[in-house]
């Protein structure tokens, strides 16, 4: 027997071509994907552990401080990385990036006329613990305008990147906030199949809220699971 991973569930994924999101039109592959039979190339993947992290990597309110605290609403984002069989995924690297409280990214290409925060980078990472749990402390990102269509605004979101245990489990996604009125107008969020959009929205959790410090939000990830197949 050898390890392999269950197929990608295409019914939960956005299509490559989603014309409402205009950048897909010239960038989406047009030909059908060719199925690959999983080999060691697909069931292995990069492994990064706690040893590669800096002490403040998971605290975005402190990891770029230049003398004062970043401006904005502190939040805690926590949750678990599971596979589709419900198994926690320990020791998994998670990388995040986001805009600041004013909706401005540090990236030089971002020309939105909102202030940068000298004490906030917006990048972070951590590794899941033995139960697959992760926790970031950060600033709630602001909404920001973009050029997709007239008066287009991205809802507040945090970008997440996870490798999971193999190349085939790679996931890059975005986490949104409950009750955001911009979600219904966002072609990136709306590109997701309707019955799976809720999976991209974090939940406010009083139990993760730290008194006098920060509101808590919970967001779980579900990666493709393993199954066993006979070796031929």
């Amino acid at each position, binding site marked *: 027997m050898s390890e392999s991973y269950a*197929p*990608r*569930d295409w019914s*939960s994924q*956005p299509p*490559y071509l*989603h014309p409402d*999101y205009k*950048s*897909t*039109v*010239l*960038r*989406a*592959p047009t030909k059908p*994907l*060719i*199925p*690959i*039979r999983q*080999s*060691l*190339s697909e*069931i*292995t*993947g*990069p*492994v990064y552990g706690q040893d590669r992290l800096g002490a403040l990597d998971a605290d975005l309110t402190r*990891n*770029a401080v230049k003398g004062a605290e970043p401006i904005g609403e502190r939040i805690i984002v926590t949750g678990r990385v*599971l*596979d*589709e*069989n419900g198994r926690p995924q320990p020791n998994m*690297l998670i*990388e995040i*990036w986001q*805009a600041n409280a004013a909706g401005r*990214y*540090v990236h030089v*290409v*971002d020309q939105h006329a909102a202030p940068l925060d000298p004490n906030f*980078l*917006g*990048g972070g990472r951590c590794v899941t613990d033995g139960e697959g749990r992760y926790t970031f402390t950060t600033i709630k990102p602001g909404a920001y305008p973009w050029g997709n269509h007239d008066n287009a605004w991205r809802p507040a979101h945090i*970008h997440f*990147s996870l490798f999971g245990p*193999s*190349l085939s489990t790679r*996931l*890059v*996604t*975005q986490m949104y906030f409950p009750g955001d009125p911009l979600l219904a107008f966002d072609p990136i969020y709306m590109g*997701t199949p309707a019955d*799976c959009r809720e*999976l*991209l929205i974090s939940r406010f959790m009083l139990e993760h809220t730290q008194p006098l410090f920060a509101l808590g939000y919970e967001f779980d*990830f*579900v*990666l493709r699971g393993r199954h066993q197949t006979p070796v031929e």
Partner: protein
Amino acid sequence: MSKLRQTPSQTVGPFFAYALTPEQYGYDFASIADGALVEGDVPGQRIRIEGRVLDGNGDVVPDAMIEIWQADEQGRYAHPADPRGSNVGFKGFGRMGTGTDPEQRFIFDTIKPGSVDGAQAPHINVIVFMRGLLLHAYTRMYFSDEAAANARDPVLASVPAERRHTLIALKDEASAGAVYRLDIHMQGPNETVFFDV
């Protein structure tokens, strides 16, 4: 048991660099990986891989991110699922954005991988991310000077013959070192073969 739904993918967007490729772009944050895969004294032939990403108009994409994952010179992956173990010090993972090179190339300095399992030709696994891709795209990179091995490779054999060239990096015979080039075409007559991995 009913399965949990897989988390939907969303685009990497245009602003990933300060978190995912910070040192390459000059941000004050450590990178976990970059375009230099060889650290120290790793055995194997040093090679450079370079290419561009092109959209459906043939325009170069300046905000893509390319990740590569490869075996060592003996075809072993640095991962517990590979029971043979790998060379200490060769992780086999690289990551580069296309936004810093004057020609918007991705450039990886690495070693040439060996055949993974005897059946497959030497290859590098590639993941493509960019604004406008709601879901990352997987492809592979083979080597033009491995014609005999390529002819036996089961994955290449599963690709229509007229599209196989989109997966084969061409060795630059004029270059002093071993340089291989392969552009990634998202669309068009030379659209790269992408895989359902």
